[in-house]
């Protein structure tokens, strides 16, 4: 017998003897960094006994771009585009978190119309992000078609974003002090139109994918994470709410105009299996989209004419020495920016709390005991974006 490879400590390396003195050895197999189920360049080193996983270890850093360090070398405004590129599916929310942190340092408040526009865009962006999450989750499970249905609605949203800021993926629209510009004429009507369309289309995903018997079989009771585990590992967003913990920063630490909106925090119910399984995480995302539509409608009803940006915030921002942390509810969980200023135009410390990174840390503890195919289901339900885990 050859010596086992030294990639993992010897005590983790399991050798078993079964009948007829056949010694079996676990398979060590790399899932990623180039693998369709890892949603990017994540590498999960799996240890499997046939189809059953006995160990997992995630390796990160394939997409590390030193975003935080760059944040300590460029102006506050110059750092804006880098925030777009953490979680490229929810750039509006990334911009928002950063802008709120800088605004807290500056001590300015954005005019009402700017706040409503920000809320509308953050929620639309949440829908766009969840559409990708739900659609790609279908692909992870083996259903390719719902993804295209999801992209159809996402396309509408991206067109809306393009109309308001010119970009379809990396918006840099929400900026310290407000937003880039006011919404063009007729844009808000288009948003209302989208809300109506989306209400009609949502049952399609629900019936085609989520209510599918095979989908339920594949996700219910898979990757169960009890509430305490989710809290212990610092999970946030749908990962946490999927486990039944009622915690949403939009309601519990309100920012923008969320305290004036009437919405429900969607919490997993163990609707088809155990509370905290992959189905529940997907369930939370599905219903959060509907809640977002509700919020957008309320914002559309309440929005008034007026300024969109604070007039005092110029391109060169020099906050007084101090520090600020603002966490917001990103589509994937709490995205926080911790900014320390020493009074110059460049931040002394820039730190980003990325939800994907924190949520991913629990995955390797959920995987052992599952089957190989469940690895795709669990990683998919975590809904990580590698741009954000590695930054």
């Amino acid at each position: 017998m050859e010596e086992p490879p030294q990639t993992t400590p010897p005590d983790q390396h399991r050798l078993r003897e079964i009948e007829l003195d056949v010694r079996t050895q676990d398979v060590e197999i790399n899932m990623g960094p180039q693998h369709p189920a890892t949603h990017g360049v994540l590498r999960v080193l799996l240890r499997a006994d046939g189809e059953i996983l006995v160990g997992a270890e995630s390796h990160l850093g394939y997409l590390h771009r030193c975003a935080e360090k760059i944040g300590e070398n460029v102006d506050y405004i110059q750092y804006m585009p880098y925030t777009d590129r953490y979680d490229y599916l929810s750039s509006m929310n990334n911009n928002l978190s950063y802008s709120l942190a800088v605004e807290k340092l500056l001590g300015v408040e954005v005019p009402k119309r700017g706040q409503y526009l920000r809320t509308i865009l953050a929620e639309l962006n949440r829908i766009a992000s969840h559409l990708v999450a739900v659609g790609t989750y279908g692909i992870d499970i083996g259903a390719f078609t719902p993804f295209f249905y999801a992209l159809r609605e996402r396309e509408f949203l991206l067109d809306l974003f393009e109309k308001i800021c010119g970009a379809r993926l990396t918006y840099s629209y929400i900026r310290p002090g407000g937003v880039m510009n006011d919404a063009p004429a007729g844009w808000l009507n288009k948003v209302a139109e989208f809300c109506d369309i989306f209400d009609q289309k949502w049952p399609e995903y629900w019936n085609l994918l989520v209510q599918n018997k095979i989908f339920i079989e594949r996700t219910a009771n898979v990757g169960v994470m009890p509430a305490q585990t989710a809290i212990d590992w610092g999970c946030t967003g749908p990962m946490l709410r999927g486990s039944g913990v009622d915690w949403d920063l939009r309601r519990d630490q309100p920012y923008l105009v969320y305290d004036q909106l009437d919405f429900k925090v969607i919490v997993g119910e163990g609707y088809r299996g155990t509370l905290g399984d992959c189905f529940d995480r997907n369930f939370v995302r599905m219903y959060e989209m509907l809640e977002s539509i509700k919020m957008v409608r309320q914002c559309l009803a309440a929005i008034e004419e007026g300024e969109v940006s604070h007039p005092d915030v110029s391109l060169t921002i020099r906050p007084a020495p101090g520090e600020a942390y603002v966490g917001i509810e990103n589509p994937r969980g709490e995205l926080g920016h911790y900014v320390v200023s020493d009074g110059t135009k460049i931040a002394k410390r820039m730190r980003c709390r990325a939800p994907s990174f924190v949520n991913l840390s629990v995955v390797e503890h959920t995987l052992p005991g599952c089957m190989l195919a469940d690895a795709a289901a669990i990683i998919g339900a975590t809904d990580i974006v590698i741009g954000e885990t590695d930054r």
Partner: protein
Amino acid sequence: MKPLTIIASALPEAPVSEAAAPQGNGLTEMLAGWLPESVPFWGLTLMASGLAFGVIMAFVSVVAMFSTWLERKVAGHIQIRLGPMRVGGWHGWAQAIADGVKLLIKEDIILASADRPLFKLAPALVLGTAISTFVVLPFAPGVMIADVHLGIFFVIAISSVTTIGVIMAGWGSNNKWSVYGAMREAAQVASYEIPLGLSLMPPVIYYGSFSLLEATQAQSGWFGMHWYILDPSVMLVSVPSFVLFFVATLAETKRAPFDLPESESELVAGFHTEYSGIRFSFFFMEEYAAMFVMSAIATVLWFGGWNFLGLAALEGIPVLYTTACMLVFIVKSMLLVFVMMWVRWTLPRLRIDQVMILGYKYLTPLCLIVVFAASLLEYLRFVLSN
């Protein structure tokens, strides 16, 4: 088993029943008529085999190409896209040809660490078995390479050999994902052979024969609509047995929701991860050929083979009749292939343990029940008719 009978398509009046079948080989005799006397018999046999192989190979290629194009169009339209639209003009009809040419001229990569003999042999074995199943398909009266008495048995037996090719490919690739794919294929096909074989028994009991030709001929009544699945006296077993057969077929041909051996979101591409170029296309062709063969079997046993309403009226015009019968047969089979594609682009994929549970806990017992019911029904029919 009686000797292989090759009946030339040019002889629509050729006797097809067992008693009157020519002793030698239809194709061989035809060649003997054309060629000088000096050509020895073994030469004729060799030529006839070559001709038959050429015809099947050409047919399989066309079926695979058409199915590829169809699959992409079906997938496209299900996914609110258009699918291929450019190559060749009308709805991208030449896309499959372009793809084939591309695969032919691509570099054929064999890994340095691969087990070269296995790696090279596997695609040939897989495609070869798929092609040989075409031998027994009765396309039209007189258009059939060989009327094997145990035709159904032949198809099941030969198509299982594909598994060995897949395991060779998975092992020879020296890639763990490929091995996973191969092992899944082995487990899955071995388990689904049972329901597949059992679900074929009700029609066999009904026809009292394993021959595909006899099954087709038995369904020619009612102006060509006396199909097994439409016969009200046996509908109680014919419909369930077809459903069971269809599910088992999906597993046997590695189609979704049973495409675990090549599940791309889990195993990258399964057993053919390391293949490229023409070797990869062999696996591809095998998949579509197998789909067509299985659909053709279903067509023969449940949907009346080449029989269709009023088709017998054309019997006086031999060439037209043969062509029409072939067309009916191929269209029926392609419709079933279309259903397989429809299923693939709609359903998610099962997990390996769920596949096994479905196979052993549900399909196999249900098949046994259906076979029992079919036997009982046949006995009752026998008693009542006497």
